[in-house]
């Protein structure tokens, strides 16, 4: 029963996030989607991911979106969609049908591996993943610093723009 409500809520939040007119409303619906999917993770028996999703997905990412929208002034780009709406709807429904054909009904074989604890699995079984995460976070920080740096003249893109004008 709880899962039914959560499932309907997740799908509705996704649609509202896309259909919302204002960017801030869209961001808030994304946060709602994150929170509801965190609840779904908990129901599915994945409490660690639920906690991280709730703090990172619903917290950090929302703050970043609001900050970026505030910095850039946001709120423009109306006008018609780049392709006809009917085509987009048909493609969306087609993709849904394809996915449903692939994953329904869920009949994976019951494979019970040796049960490790989450900490053991993360730091020993998937140690390489943790290293890759660290590398990705580091490169993300470097690229954000490069993108938002003050030295505009050093960017090749800016020079080309001056050359055009």
């Amino acid at each position, binding site marked *: 029963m709880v*899962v*039914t409500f959560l*499932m309907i809520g*997740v*799908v509705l939040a*996704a649609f509202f*996030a*896309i259909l919302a007119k204002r*960017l801030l409303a*869209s961001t808030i619906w*994304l946060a709602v*989607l994150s929170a509801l999917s965190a609840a*779904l*993770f908990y129901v*599915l*028996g*994945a409490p*660690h*991911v639920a906690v*991280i999703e709730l703090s*990172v997905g619903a917290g950090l*990412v929302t703050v970043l*979106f609001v900050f970026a929208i505030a*910095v*850039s*002034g946001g709120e*423009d*780009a109306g*006008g018609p969609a*780049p*392709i006809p709406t009917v085509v*987009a709807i048909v*493609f*969306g429904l087609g*993709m*849904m049908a394809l*996915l449903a054909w692939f994953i*329904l009904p*869920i009949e994976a074989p*019951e*494979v*019970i*591996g040796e*049960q490790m604890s*989450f900490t053991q*699995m993360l730091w020993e079984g*998937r140690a390489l*993943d943790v290293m890759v*995460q660290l590398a*990705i*976070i580091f*490169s*993300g920080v470097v*690229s*954000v610093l490069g*993108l*938002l740096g003050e030295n505009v003249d050093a960017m090749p*893109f*800016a020079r080309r*723009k001056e050359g055009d004008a």
Partner: protein
Amino acid sequence: MSLDMLDLVALAVIGVFGAGIYGLLAVRNLFKMIVVLQILVKAALLALVTAGNRSGELVLAQSLALTVIVVDTVVAVVALALAVQVKHRTGSLDIQDLTRLKG
């Protein structure tokens, strides 16, 4: 016909995924495009945890989902920085204004 819990979650995955695909095609604001990418990743995460629950490898699924969350957050941060710079330079967030090809 009764649906068990995992079938319901799979339906949610399908719904969120379909919404994301529609959004990718129909949205033209750069910020909203990043929101749509986040929605698609949420669908993938839900599918991952569902598969872990069904196959009994929930610990492994949680570990992989953690990686997905971290990478997705970094992608969102870099994409937001790019969008802010695009707005700064072109004065618009419309993806149609990004093209420089005329003709």
